[in-house]
């Protein structure tokens, strides 16, 4: 089956999920993001790559951070950006998702960033749009959140460059988390040898082992000797009750405290995709502690989103003879 994310030459055309992306593309995105990190530290925090292009943020589900970072990323690439919160626009009048997209294409949008509560929404739009338009999935239901997965592995690479030597633990509500899925695919594709998931049975998808992870139900056991602790948000709004006794009970068993963190390697880093439920999955002293890289994650998220947009909008990447490209 043809991968809808790649064109016939194997170049990235849409970013819909990390699953199915070759290591070559993941590394291309991470390496390009490396170059964008410095742009934010300059006097003029902009490069002219996407000048004249229009990026359309279509958010059918709320997310302040993701929308803001996509918006900043597009603006730093000199694109024009429109952000639509669709629950406040025509959709509430009954327009279908594809009609909304068609109308924006008629207004000459060049790229769509889609967030939707339904898994597969971005795929649906990617299949629908003409070839010159690119789609980025900014989170669809329980399925995938590829830029979050990418910014997480980028953050890990920044702090722990030896990916081939790492033990990573992902802790919390894996069942409802598109972030966890994206992280697991990114980590295993990039060759991280040991990925653990730590969660109660009720918050793990069935057959999660098939993703190549080690499953732990005891957090203390699972944290032993890990280099990276990736917390997940307890997805209150997705929970239909009955999966957990109470938030307090959850914190006692699966909340990250200084005392539990001490079981990991002394230089382990702590990550969280936000927004945090302090005192539910993570203790404030850990979230604000010196092992926390939660705010760098946000900063790197902009560089990752810039890299993805720059790679997508560039049309055909150079088919040049290696190293002979344009140094003149």
């Amino acid at each position, binding site marked *: 089956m043809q991968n809808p994310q790649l064109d016939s030459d194997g170049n990235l055309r849409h970013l819909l999920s990390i699953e199915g992306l070759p290591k070559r593309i993941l590394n*291309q995105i991470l390496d390009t993001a490396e170059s964008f990190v410095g742009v934010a530290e300059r006097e003029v925090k902009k490069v*002219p790559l996407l000048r004249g292009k229009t990026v359309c943020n279509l958010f059918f589900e709320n997310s302040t951070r993701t929308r803001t970072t996509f918006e900043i990323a597009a603006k730093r690439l000199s694109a024009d950006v429109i952000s639509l919160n669709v629950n406040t626009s025509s959709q509430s009048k009954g327009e279908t998702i594809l009609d909304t997209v068609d109308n924006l294409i008629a207004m000459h949008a060049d790229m769509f960033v889609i967030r939707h509560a339904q898994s597969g929404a971005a795929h649906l739009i990617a299949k629908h749009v003409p070839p010159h338009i690119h789609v980025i999935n900014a989170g669809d239901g329980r399925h995938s959140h590829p830029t979050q997965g990418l910014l997480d592995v980028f953050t890990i690479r920044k702090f722990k460059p030896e990916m081939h030597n790492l033990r990573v633990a992902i802790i919390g509500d894996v069942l409802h988390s598109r972030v966890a899925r994206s992280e697991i695919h990114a980590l295993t594709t990039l060759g991280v040898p040991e990925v653990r998931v730590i969660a109660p049975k009720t918050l793990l998808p069935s057959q999660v082992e098939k993703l190549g992870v080690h499953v732990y139900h005891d957090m203390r056991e699972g944290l032993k000797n890990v280099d990276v602790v990736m917390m997940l948000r307890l997805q209150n709004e997705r929970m239909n009750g009955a999966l957990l006794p109470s938030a307090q009970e959850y914190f006692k068993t699966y909340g990250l405290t200084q005392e539990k963190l001490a079981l990991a390697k002394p230089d382990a880093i702590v990550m969280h995709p936000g927004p945090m439920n302090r005192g539910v999955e993570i203790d404030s002293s850990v979230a604000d502690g010196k092992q926390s890289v939660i705010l760098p994650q946000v900063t790197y998220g902009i560089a990752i989103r810039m890299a993805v947009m*720059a790679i997508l909008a*560039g*049309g055909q990447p150079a088919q040049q*003879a290696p190293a002979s*490209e344009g*140094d*003149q």
Partner: protein
Amino acid sequence: MTDKNRPMTELQSAQLPNAEHLLQALAKALQPLLKKNTALVGIHSGGVWLMERLLTLLEPAITANAIEHGTLDVSFYRDDYAKRGLKIETHPSQIPFDVENKHIILIDDVFYTGRTTRAAMNELFDYGRPASISLAALVNRGGRELPIAPQIVAAEIPLHASQHLQLIKLANDELALALTPNHNSTRT
């Protein structure tokens, strides 16, 4: 093609001058320009190799005048991005000094159309407002398409558009010039 002296026949690699000799000539020509408040900026990749060598060759003058240096990867400023996309490999630009009011000498390996230089100038201005910018290139191969020319050049080697001249680094770290057929229809 604007150059009158464009050759009719193609040059062979063996006919190219020795890049190490050209580097010495470039260093000599640069020496008088190294004054206080000057900075060197190499353009990836060949220009950065050259700059690293120049920093060693000109060490006394560099230290005496406290000359700073940086590197640019102009990928995000190229005018052919829409056609050719992003290079697979990009390097972070590193300008660890204040560009404001500096006399900047850009260093590139081969000067051709002038489009790389234009991109480099645009990027530099995003760091601040330099007092001046000049360009030093190892080779001017002819064929410029913009009102931009190198101020310091070690060799003029007019080349046919079908040929692609690049600086390469040999296994022993010496620099050399190499000719390859130009596969790209777009000129850079």
